[in-house]
């Protein structure tokens, strides 16, 4: 369904008052079930009340017509912005009670770059360096905490081993985790009761062990860090896990993008992470673009940036469903085309980025 750029409507500049409801209209609105031409979104008290093409204006409704595409904000997985020293506690190997939420600093100036790139939800994860690094949290850039305990972060890569501290080997690590699962306490006890698992690994062999561990204990969540997860598609499908793909750089192995396409064909939930902190949030759309060029379907790529990522993040973010918070982004064109720019960003109905006049 190619998107026609409709003739530009006359721009109405109006100050967005928060009294009563607000209706935003744009050339194309990327709703939960596909793009809507000249769509309108009715927002009341920061929540989406209705979405559709021919919405009439409610009594206290206040219409703003916009140029460009309106969509849900993007969701970035796996970032440590604002955590400063809190991203990893190196004293112990298993810290299932540690919540990354405590380290979240709303005032950090790094969040501006997220809003500028159209990201409205971020999953804070610990740096790999301990067997169980703690519990992840989902936050809105410079905004509210959406989910205090989203996943238990378990690291299956050799980054978890420290010389001189048990465990020093894969067999030792797996046996230590199995022991904790026999008589689960603290974070382990919450697994399956609202707390997902975030399996961090680097090589595909580590990924296989992580997925087998999750399958053995019937855990839900996602595998992150394995760049060629496409080779584990059967085990992932069988275990019902999602996959968070690392950022795909210029000189990256083409098989990484190809494996995203393989996962997409098998409808395995996908999302993109930023990995190292010095990655710009633009890397999300660039990685999605590379996967599309390697064969990932367009709507699968868009889902991986928004609603699919929200599901994996185990939090109500990344989709324009009715009742959800109105986290919206106005693009100058098709959001999956890098030539289009972020014009405005709303979080919970209030505009937090972009100049008012069009």
């Amino acid at each position, binding site marked *: 369904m190619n998107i026609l750029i409709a003739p530009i409507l006359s721009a109405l500049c109006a100050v967005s008052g928060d009294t009563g409801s607000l209706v935003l209209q744009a050339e194309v609105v990327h709703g939960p079930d596909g793009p809507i031409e000249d769509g309108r979104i009715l927002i009341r008290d920061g929540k989406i009340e209705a979405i559709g093409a021919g919405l009439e204006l409610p009594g206290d409704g206040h219409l703003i017509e916009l140029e460009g595409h309106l969509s849900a904000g993007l969701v970035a997985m796996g970032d440590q912005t604002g955590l400063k020293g809190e991203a990893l506690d190196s004293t112990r190997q298993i810290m299932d009670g540690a919540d990354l939420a405590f380290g979240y600093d709303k005032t950090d100036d790094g969040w501006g770059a997220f809003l500028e790139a159209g990201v409205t939800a971020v999953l804070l994860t610990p740096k790999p360096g301990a067997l169980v690094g703690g519990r992840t949290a989902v936050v809105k850039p410079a905004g509210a905490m959406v989910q205090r305990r989203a996943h238990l972060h378990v690291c299956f890569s050799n980054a978890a081993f420290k010389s001189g501290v048990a465990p020093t080997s894969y067999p030792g690590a797996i046996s230590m985790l199995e022991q904790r699962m026999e008589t689960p306490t603290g974070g382990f006890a919450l697994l399956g009761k609202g707390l997902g698992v975030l399996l961090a690994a680097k090589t595909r062999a580590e990924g296989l062990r992580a997925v087998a561990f999750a399958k053995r204990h019937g855990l839900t969540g996602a595998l992150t860090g394995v760049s060629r997860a496409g080779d584990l598609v059967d085990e992932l499908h069988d275990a019902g896990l999602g996959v968070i793909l690392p950022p795909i750089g*210029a*000189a990256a192995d083409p098989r990484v993008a190809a494996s995203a396409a393989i996962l997409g064909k098998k409808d395995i939930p996908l999302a993109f992470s930023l990995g190292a902190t*010095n990655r710009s949030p633009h890397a999300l759309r660039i990685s999605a673009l590379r996967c599309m060029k390697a064969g990932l379907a367009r709507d699968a790529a868009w889902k991986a940036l928004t609603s699919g990522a929200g599901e994996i993040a185990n939090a109500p973010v990344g989709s324009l469903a009715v009742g959800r918070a109105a986290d919206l982004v106005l693009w100058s064109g*098709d959001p999956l085309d890098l*030539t*289009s*720019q972020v014009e405005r960003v709303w979080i919970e109905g209030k505009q937090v980025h972009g100049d008012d006049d069009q």
Partner: protein
Amino acid sequence: MHIDTQPSRRGTLTALLAPALLAWAPTISAQEPADPPAETQIFIKAERVIVQPGKELKDAQVLVQGGKVLAVGTDLVAPEGARVIETKVVCAGFIDPWSTLGLDSASASLKDTNILTRAVDALDPFGSAVHLEAALRAGITGYGVALGGKASVKGLGAFVCTANHADGGLDVLLKDSFIGATVGSSGDAFDRIGYAERLVKYIKAGEEYRVEQVEYTHEIAKWRTEIAESEAKLEKDFKKAKKSRDKEIEEAEEDDKEFKEESYKEDRQPRKPRFDAEKEAWARVAEGTLPLVVEAHRYVELSALLDGTKAFDRLRLVIAGGTEVLPLAATLVKRSIPVIVWPTPLGSKRPAGMRAHDLSLAGALAEKDVRVLLGSGGTSGTRDLPLLAALAVGHGLEPEKALAALTTEAARALDMGNILGKVRAGYRADLLLLDGDPISTTTSIRQVISAGKIAFNVEGGQ
């Protein structure tokens, strides 16, 4: 096997070590090569032919043969036997003026280079075949490569075609296309100004070396004519001198005195200035034969560089990076100095020099009519250039100027303006066949034609 004999000042253009050339390389310049064997002609029919940014032909055709574009028009007829390809859009191949693609890993980050070190020597297409293929598939048909790293003088950069040559060697269009340099890789501002002044000192020394050489040629010519005259005179009265000498010898023998030759004095021959390869190269920079591409980011060293080089009117300076060059836009326009911008998204931990890096720099400079080019920042990420161009367009650069930056402007800055960058008769047949607007990232490239041959075909096969 084709041979490019472009009318250019810099010696014969031989494909790097193509075997056939090895055998008769020396004879190239001697006689006009016989016209190449009748290769199959390629006849392209397209809805839009972008001759150059801002000039398009609707429902036009392009005829390609012998590595060159023979004809472009709206009413051409496919000659018999030509291979016909239909596509939506045709435009010139993209050029990356600032890359280290194809260099062997050790040479990409060097410290011990000087102006004589040649990037051509470090090219290793065998090791980087995969990256070259990816760049070609992304539409980059040619690129300027300089030795990498933060060496203050990087040496002779080359202009290389991305498509691999038959024998696996690389098709080098210009072995010495420009001089690469870096200013400002240290933290301290005075250090950075020192680097800029050192570059100016080198150019000055090069200029003085050229002046000294020109003076010597005059002096030696004058001296030679004088000597020739005095020799003619000496020859004329040789007999007289011989007679007087014989007389003196006799007298000496009579007085039993030892005969002493007359002493002969002439004004000394002027000394030839000592040959200095480095100064010779800097002289070529000073007189504008070779453009000087300087990587500099912060305002302090940029302004020091521009002030220092004000006096050299024939110097052709190109700024690479230029993160904080916006305030100096006026000087850049006056002296027509192009800026190669690296529009890549940088996260929070940015390199020191690029603290103020902003994706909208390209757009801002273009608004002030500065000649803007887009480069992959001296990395092997050349394949990402179209992606970076789209990001720049997404941050204020007009699409037409972005396409110019990738084709005509880049060719012009690297002295290839007469053969690359446009879809025009007589130009080299580096063409992209696409299914949409060249700059938009949702467009895909169907075929890439390099030097008249289909180097990449999305349907596979040649």
